[in-house]
């Protein structure tokens, strides 16, 4: 190793495989941001309209950035929650059910307690987060105590959640029209709605948990080597339980932002979060076998997914193509970021 390093050119020494893998997601995001305006520019040139690259772009504008932010905020919260789980080397597929239940229970409680944030109804917000925590906790219990693989336990819990939400609503939509709650979307600072700042604040909290708490350290230890974590005296089961509980809280925050965005809580509120959040985590560079990655990776991943979704709309690709593009993106991300020679347990 030392020999090869000494012989390499400065450029090769700088562009190590590890560095490239580490920064690739950000690079991809940058390329996408420049690419979509280029498509737009080509389109307009072909249509014979005058168009300056980037400057006249509909995609590359503050207004569109805010649109991307609104779309990304709830997904970011869900993806951050599942990031912790993936760092542990497990997976959580319960997000759609959890989001639906949290959204519906929030709306019911909020309306039952007078329906405005300026009363006791604000308690519906922590209540929803508690519900998320409880869902995650049960999810973790099923996984750890009944020794069911996390993907199966969480997938099943997700269905339970969706069913529960349907049971509660009877299939109806519940409108949350309190203007103060809706100011998550309507109130803008520096062109971006409040919900974007809220999401960012929770991202910082997640970062704090990841980097500065024993819990965060434990996630990495369990994901990096469960045997070793155990052999260092860590209570691996407890770490897993807390991980799933924490993920549940972030799913709940995602649910609140989702309700804030459209003003409606229903069983379908949770739809699509699974694919988008897992895609974002993987595309952001967090390793599916655990131990590597973090919430900043997830931010970049969510932005990549949101930019692609938004960009495809702007350049006018049919909606059904978008899922296919995202699917291909996941495969590409895993292929590029995995040293598959060293992973022998591909099952």
């Amino acid at each position, binding site marked *: 190793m030392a020999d090869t390093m000494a012989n390499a050119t400065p450029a090769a020494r700088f562009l190590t495989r590890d560095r490239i893998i580490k920064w690739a997601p950000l690079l991809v995001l940058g390329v996408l941001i420049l690419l979509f305006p280029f498509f737009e520019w080509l389109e307009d040139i072909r249509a014979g309209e005058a168009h300056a690259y980037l400057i006249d772009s509909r995609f590359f504008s503050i207004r569109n950035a805010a649109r991307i932010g609104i779309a990304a905020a709830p997904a970011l919260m869900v993806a951050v929650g599942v990031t912790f789980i993936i760092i542990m080397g497990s997976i959580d597929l319960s997000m759609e059910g959890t989001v639906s239940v949290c959204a519906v229970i929030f709306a019911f409680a909020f309306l039952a307690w007078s329906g405005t944030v300026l009363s006791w109804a604000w308690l519906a917000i922590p209540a929803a987060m508690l519900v998320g925590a409880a869902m995650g906790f049960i999810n973790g219990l099923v996984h750890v105590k009944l020794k069911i693989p996390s993907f199966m336990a969480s997938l099943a819990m997700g269905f339970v959640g969706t069913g529960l939400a349907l049971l509660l609503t009877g299939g109806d939509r519940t409108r949350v029209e309190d203007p103060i709650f809706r100011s998550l979307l309507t109130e803008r600072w520096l062109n971006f709605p409040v919900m974007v700042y809220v999401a960012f604040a929770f991202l910082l909290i997640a970062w704090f948990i990841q980097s*500065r*708490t024993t819990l965060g350290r434990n996630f990495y230890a369990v994901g990096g080597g469960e045997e070793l974590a155990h052999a260092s005296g860590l209570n691996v089961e407890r770490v897993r339980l807390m991980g799933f509980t924490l993920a549940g809280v972030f799913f709940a925050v995602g649910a609140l932002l989702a309700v804030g965005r459209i003003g409606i809580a229903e069983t379908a509120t949770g739809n699509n979060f699974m694919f988008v959040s897992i895609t974002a985590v993987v595309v952001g560079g967090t390793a599916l076998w655990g131990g590597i990655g973090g919430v900043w990776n997830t931010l970049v991943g969510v932005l990549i997914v949101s930019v692609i979704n938004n960009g495809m709309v702007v350049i006018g690709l049919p909606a059904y193509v978008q899922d296919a593009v995202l699917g291909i993106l996941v495969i590409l991300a895993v292929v590029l970021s995995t040293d598959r020679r060293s992973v022998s347990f591909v099952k």
Partner: protein
Amino acid sequence: MYELRKVDKKFPGVHALKAVDFKVNRGEIVGLVGENGAGKSTLMKVIYGAYQPDGGTITIDGTAVRFQNPRQAMEHGIGMVFQEQSLITNLTVMENIFLGYEAQFVKFGVIDWKAMAEAARRQLAKVKLDINPATITSELSFAQRQLIELAKVLTLEERIDGDLVILLDEPTSVLAKEEVELLFKLVRELTNRASFIFVSHRMDEVLDLSDRIYVMKDGEVVDVVDHDAAEVDAIQHKMVGRDVDKEYYREQKQQPYGDEVLVSFDTVSAGNRYKDISFDLHRGEVLCLVGTEGSGREAILRTIFGLQTPTSGQVTIKGQPISSFNARASVDLGVGYVPRERKVEGIVAGMNVYENMTLSQMQNYSNAGVLRTGEEKSLARTWIERLAIKTPNENKDCGGLSGGNQQKVVLAKWRSGGSDIILLDHPTRGLDIGAKEDVYEMIRAMCDDGAGIILVADTLEEAIGLSHTILVVKDGEFQKRFDGRPGDKPSLYDLVHHMI
């Protein structure tokens, strides 16, 4: 017919094979002996194509060959019977025998099971095994599976033109005495079909079966002995080589140990892992468990660390009788475990130096779950300096450090947390000489600090050089206890005698 000339193999920090000459004649049974780490497994892996040599030549009947993988080696007639068996237990016997070579039975895309069963029966007849080829492998005894493994390798006979060379890696380690005799009889009969390379820890078996014996030490072939000239004593001396170097193992720093008992075993047994083990570990003592692979040494370590619950007997740590065995409780009592597989159980690659060091004691570096990273880093800096850990700084990923430095990080993890019962499982495995000496130095320093150490050493020399007390175990049972006062240490031969 099969010959290696001046074959060399290097790994980072280890010269595993040094210009090895090795030859197998037609119909011959060649024995291969050597201590752990002498290079036997590397040599075998080169022979069956899992490793490519860095230098030297391999020839079959005078033609040079080079294998990229085991499959290519098989196509040249080199077969391997693995110690840890390679059969897939949920498949039938015949599926296992023809795994990867089913195409010969396929007609119109469908497997002709009757033809396969018939062919499998022919293979089983070669090893005198009369069972239904459609039996699920997991229903068979270990000895039967061993024979199936052999039958599988013997299918090469029909597939290739040249002669067969079959490697047997510790084939007798789990067989009963009668089964061993049957296997040997079979191998002798099969020499009209193939040549064999026989690797075993059991010297008497190697002497019994082999026509010629290669003795390896430190990556070199130090002797080749003919069957008739072979003597156990002479070979054992060759295997262990030079006399124990007192300077090397810091023997002059060995102090008498204290009176306080840290760990006490009173006729402790754990299923079939070990039986009726008793000993006391005192402050300042290095107690070494000596025995062959699978003799129960590791299981004893794992019991002290709470990972293997005993079935009877009483374990006492620092005066406290232990009733529930778990790692957390052991860690809290001051037990630290330095496992053999550094990559699996030693350090978390991907986490940096200070994160690894505080992994077992985060509660001491956090308030209500929030880490005091500054303190962690200063602790790491202290230990980096104290143990001369070669790393640019405490933020470096541990996975990028050399083996010796990773080992120092693991030791620092336990020592910095105040652990004073240190379990070392092959602490110097895979380290170069300088790094080994650092580990020896640390062991002496820990004893001076009042720690007690239980060691499973990488070599016998290490065991003798470092220990106050040596316990020899064989097949899970206590054999003999040696006192290792400086100047009055047991010889290698004394130990080997009781081990095998």
